[in-house]
């Protein structure tokens, strides 16, 4: 029996697959760039979906991990480009897989530190303390001159992947699709796992989970770190898409935009982040082309979705989530 949600998901996958073909037929290579953006923002939102959708951790600091991932890509690339060693004499690199691993490690470590301190709080306090950490990193990036400060870091040429010409839009899009698919699979595996059950349990009833001998704090910390790692990889890809990274990736506006994506699509839904990212990118592209007052209309549309389409677009198309 195919549920309506499954139907929506299949349609979505077909649509994403259709983009490269449409771009070819219409001779519009920019559609590839748009689809790449959707995949990357979608991946970042998948990470958020684990912490937020499963764990109920509403934060306002995820731009920190997105930006840290971006800076890892930028800093490694610029050192490789200039042939200068980094901290501890390590060389830079322009190989994507290596950059991703470093992005995962660095953003995971940062998240471990932040999470250990912030997860003692909850609710609005958690939202605000994560924002505080993100702001600290933001101001640090702006005033630290070594990697461009507010000007950001331009590394001219996209990083490479063995055997793939990443400078062309299509291969890079496929890499991003592949990582998005991995992220979605990871989300599904986690949701079905005992860890996922404990995480959702901790959201619904903290005392009951604690009574079974599992520490809700530790469960949440692990979720927080996994989320940061996924967001970090997405940040590294985003830097590669733009061949540029700047403190704007760390700003609270970026955190706001990522929240927008996930609520647009549907919180806790497997494909919610991808639908939300798709809708957001299309709105931005379409409205921006029509009027310079596009932010006004974007705001009104977002407002409409929150007020009248609870459960996001997937909720609208597929009805309430089914368990199992």
């Amino acid at each position, binding site marked *: 029996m195919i549920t309506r949600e499954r139907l929506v998901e299949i349609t979505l996958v077909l649509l994403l697959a259709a983009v490269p073909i449409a771009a070819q037929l219409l001779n519009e290579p920019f559609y590839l760039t748009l689809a790449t953006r959707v995949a990357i923002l979608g991946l970042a939102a998948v990470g958020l979906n684990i912490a937020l959708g499963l764990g109920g951790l509403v934060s306002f600091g995820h731009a920190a991990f997105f930006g840290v991932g971006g800076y890892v890509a930028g800093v490694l690339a610029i050192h490789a480009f200039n042939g200068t060693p980094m901290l501890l004499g390590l060389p830079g690199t322009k190989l994507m897989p290596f950059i991703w691993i470093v992005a995962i490690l660095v953003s995971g470590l940062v998240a471990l530190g932040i999470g250990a301190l912030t997860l003692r*709080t909850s609710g609005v*306090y958690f939202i605000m303390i994560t924002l505080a950490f993100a702001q600290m990193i933001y101001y640090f990036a702006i005033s630290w001159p070594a990697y461009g400060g507010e000007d950001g870091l331009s590394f001219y040429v996209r990083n490479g992947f063995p055997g793939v010409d990443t400078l062309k839009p299509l291969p890079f899009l496929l890499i991003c699709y592949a990582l998005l698919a991995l992220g979605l699979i990871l989300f599904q595996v986690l949701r079905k796992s005992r860890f996922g059950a404990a995480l959702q349990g901790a959201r619904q009833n903290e005392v009951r989970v604690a009574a079974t001998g599992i520490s809700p704090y530790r469960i949440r910390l692990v979720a927080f770190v996994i989320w940061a790692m996924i967001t970090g990889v997405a940040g590294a890809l985003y830097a590669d898409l733009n061949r540029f990274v700047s403190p704007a990736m760390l700003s609270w506006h970026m955190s706001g935009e990522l*929240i927008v994506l996930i609520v647009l699509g549907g919180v806790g839904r497997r494909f919610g982040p991808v639908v939300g990212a798709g809708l957001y990118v299309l709105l931005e592209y379409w409205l921006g082309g029509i009027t310079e007052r596009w932010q006004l209309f974007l*705001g009104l549309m*977002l*407002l409409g979705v929150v007020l009248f389409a609870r459960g996001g677009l997937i909720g609208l198309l597929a009805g309430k989530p089914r368990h199992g």
Partner: protein
Amino acid sequence: MSSALLVEQLLNGLQLGVMLYLMAAGLTLIFGVMGLINLAHGSLYMVGAFACAAVAAWTGSFFLALIGALIAAAAAGALMEILVIRRLYGRDHLDQVLATFALILVFSEATRWLFGPFPLYLDIPAILQGTVPLPGGSRYQIYRLAIIGVGIAVAIGLYLLISRTRLGMRIRAGESDREMIAALGVDIRTLYTVVFALGAGLAGLAGAMIGPLQSVQVGMGEPVLILAFVVIVIGGIGSNRGALIGAILVGVVDTMGRALLPGVLSGLLGPSAAATTGSSLASMLIYLVMVVILVFRPRGLFPAGS
């Protein structure tokens, strides 16, 4: 640093703190009564400043403009509550964050549409222009002293309103038990609109008073909004007393950090490097303070309802 300069910097910190208090008082009141996170509070601050500049340009009177700003911001707040916010009370924080984030976009672009892209002109009224001597030979702006005075008056007024009046009683009842006041026959919808408009009016007042010191432009509310959130989190969300103490703490720490850190570091790093490093550290300082406070007191200095 001489003691005269120290006194002046303390006054500066106090003035910044008082201004933050006007923002934070509304935020914390709205959260305390309705349980709502309002990211668009900074937009109401902007509405106050723009209304003040427009009325001042039209009538030539700053004090009329101040009243106009209060009314405009309170009206904008009431409208916002009736059209949008009312539907968000039962929702989780996520929906509230998103909806009020969307409101920021709407308010910013609508303001630019109405007033054009260039910053507006607004000056201190003639009666408050000039400076007064401080002990030790320095001078201090009369207008900033007036802001401190207004802020303290608002703090006392708000305290009396909440502790002594019928409206205040309902607000306190709303903070402790929402079902209860409905059962008592209080029109809760009107109460919420009034509380929201009150908070909005305070934000508008802050914006209008700060307008003559700063640039009246689109987006001016956002840096203040973030600081106001820091204030209420440090003070304890929902606590008026916490908002006042948190605001003054943030104002003084921020000002003193900016004034003192580069000097402290210049012995270590030399003047040029100390200027940049000190400035970087100063911009991170209040967030650092907030993290330290929350690690030791996860619900702020004055947790509401304790």
